């Protein structure tokens, strides 16, 4: 071999050797710079509950900003890929498919509509990607027993049980129940009715479409019922509630001295609730899926201040759930020391993280079926507004008794 040929061969061998040594190092370096993608799903446009979807997205982005400012996770920044699911199951499926196969996310969290989440979790389950339900309450989400599915929100079994037990404790005897015909609404009805039966409370049940806004004829009918209803329990998660409250109030049905009123679903805690219902909202009772103000921890206070400063509006309980969900996923990645979805699922099962809503952990038993991967101790308390313009955190807490700040279980309107 000529000297020149030998020199070329040596150079090639040297380059290959250097390449082989440097490639993994460069890979690690490049990987370190590459962000970890996490998917966020929720309604951001009609016909879904886009008001709540926007607050949830804002809170998730705020969490990502804070996490990255603190150095990210595994030495890499995180990127939230937010997808608009429009409140439609088919859009939820498409969004989850996009996140899994195009965005290559390591985990997904979010959603406001149970029916949409049920579609999304099928995609995540098939792909083996962890998915954390943020504000979806249907029992069957965790009852399906998918290992990839976790839930930070309370489910209907936890919420409807709370207000079912409160209705019995407050002494109501004859109740009109109006629920939205969605997975969430039907799940609430299915939990509430056995509790009412158990306590011997009489009830009538009315179903309504989610986009319903004219309730006058129905309310007139309820008003003329004999014997009169002493309570009107509604389960409405969207803007139709405002028309329902205004109409029930202007027709003198509820909340009134004769008939109390409750809404389950969330719209009674949004920033424009009072603008829409005005004095009709006084004495309305609703649930808050978070800690009462007296029990807020440092993280709750810090989040409320940061969110209010950034978005010029206080956060809702749904925003808190979304914020915590982002942190819980990142905490699981950190403990798993990996972005491998299976490792994240295993780490999520062992979560023991303190967020704005208390200490999170997920049950691993199936008894009852909805327990599996449910945040079983998710905080829920009932408030009753006693003046116009009151914020949910300033409203008196009426249930559970251990948290109550009101003098009585129920503040009866004077007229």
């Amino acid at each position: 071999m000529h000297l020149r040929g030998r020199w070329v061969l040596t150079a090639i061998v040297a380059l290959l050797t250097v390449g082989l040594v440097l490639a993994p190092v460069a890979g690690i370096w490049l990987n370190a710079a590459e962000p970890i993608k996490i998917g966020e799903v929720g309604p951001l446009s009609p016909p879904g509950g886009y008001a709540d979807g926007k607050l949830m997205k804002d809170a998730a982005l705020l969490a990502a900003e804070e996490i990255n400012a603190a150095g990210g996770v595994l030495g890499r920044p995180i990127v939230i890929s937010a997808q608009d699911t429009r409140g439609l199951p088919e859009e939820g499926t498409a969004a989850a498919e996009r996140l899994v196969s195009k965005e290559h996310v390591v985990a997904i969290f979010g959603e406001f509509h149970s029916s949409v989440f049920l579609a999304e979790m099928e995609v995540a389950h098939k792909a083996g990607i962890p998915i954390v339900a943020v504000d979806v309450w249907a029992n069957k989400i965790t009852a399906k027993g998918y290992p990839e599915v976790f839930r930070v929100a309370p489910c209907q079994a936890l919420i409807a049980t709370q207000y079912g037990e409160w209705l019995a404790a407050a002494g109501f005897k004859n109740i009109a129940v109006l629920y939205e015909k969605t997975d969430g609404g039907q799940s609430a009805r299915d939990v509430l009715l056995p509790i009412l039966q158990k306590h011997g409370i009489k009830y009538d049940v009315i179903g309504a479409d989610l986009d319903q806004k004219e309730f006058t004829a129905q309310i007139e009918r309820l008003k003329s019922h004999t014997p009169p209803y002493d309570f009107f329990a509604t389960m409405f998660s969207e803007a139709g509630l405002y028309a329902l409250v205004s109409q029930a109030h202007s027709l003198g049905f509820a909340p009134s001295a004769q008939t109390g009123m409750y809404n389950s679903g969330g719209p009674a805690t949004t920033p424009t609730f009072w603008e829409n219902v005005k004095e009709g909202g006084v004495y309305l009772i609703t649930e808050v899926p978070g800690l009462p103000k007296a029990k807020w921890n440092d993280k709750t206070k810090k989040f409320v201040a940061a969110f209010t400063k950034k978005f010029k509006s206080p956060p809702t309980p749904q925003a808190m759930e979304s914020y915590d969900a982002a942190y819980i996923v990142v905490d699981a990645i950190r403990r798993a020391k990996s972005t491998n979805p299976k490792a994240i699922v295993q780490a999520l099962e062992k979560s023991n993280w303190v967020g704005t809503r208390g200490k999170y952990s997920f049950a691993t038993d199936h008894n009852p079926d909805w327990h599996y991967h449910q945040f079983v101790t998710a905080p829920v308390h009932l408030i009753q507004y006693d003046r116009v313009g009151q914020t949910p955190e300033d409203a008196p807490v009426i249930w559970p008794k251990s948290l109550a700040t009101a003098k009585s279980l129920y503040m009866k309107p004077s007229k």
Partner: protein
Amino acid sequence: MDYLFTQAANGAVIGIIYALIAVGVTIIFSILKIVNFAHGDLYMLGGYCAYYIIRLLHVPPFPAFLGAMASIFTLGIVLERLLLTPLYSERTERKDEYGLIITFGLAFFLRNIALILFGPFPLRPPSFVPGVLRMGNLILTYDRVVAGAVGLVLIVILLYFMNGTLWGQALDAVSQSRDSAAIVGINPQRFNSLAFGVGAALAAGAGALIAPIFSLAPDMGVSANIQAYVIVILGGMGSVLGSILAGIVLGEAEGLFTAFFPDPTRALAYTNAFGVLVLMLVLIARPTGLFGRRHLRME
């Protein structure tokens, strides 16, 4: 009897609002020969327009309502000039499809731009007249009384305009035959703009009247649109009087159905289905609707 009167009064108010929206669809359909899929979104914009006139200019609700109608009338003319002129061009091959796609796209655009501009949270303007009217057992908010009364006045003005003025007759002439109207000196393009503007203004008026009752949301036009199409078909495509009567009939039918359906726990759930059932029965008996013409296209 009081119960019946109460339900009938509420049904009438909702029916008048339905009629206001639907009659705009009819006018646009009669003149431009397109189904305006963005009509519900003009209804939504009318409500928001009134809201912001009140909030930003500190104007009382009634002048704000007139301001909203005027603003959306102008917007309607601008939209028609910008987007719909290809409908009148001989070079446009598929005019029906063009009209359908362009108004469908406009609906999505307006809805999403509203979401960005006005935010996702429902808003409610102040009442026209706060309080509740009580007459025996009849309870009606003054907002509903105002919506019904003003809506009725608008309908009467519209009927006078259509039947008692030269411009109204010119519109009718264009609706029957664009070419014949042009022969007698009517400029069809000008009346296309006028028709779209009037239709948009009526939708805006309905939106501004309903806002203190149902609140405003960027997607409020979706269900209004569907109801409007049901009414237009029920009344007969192209018939202004048919749309007005069908709107009131549908509002009353839905209200009375909910009030008197034997099973009170299912009445509300079946209300929309009942509206469609009424439509189906009418179409079986009269395939052209209550007042429909057999031939819509005279050209």
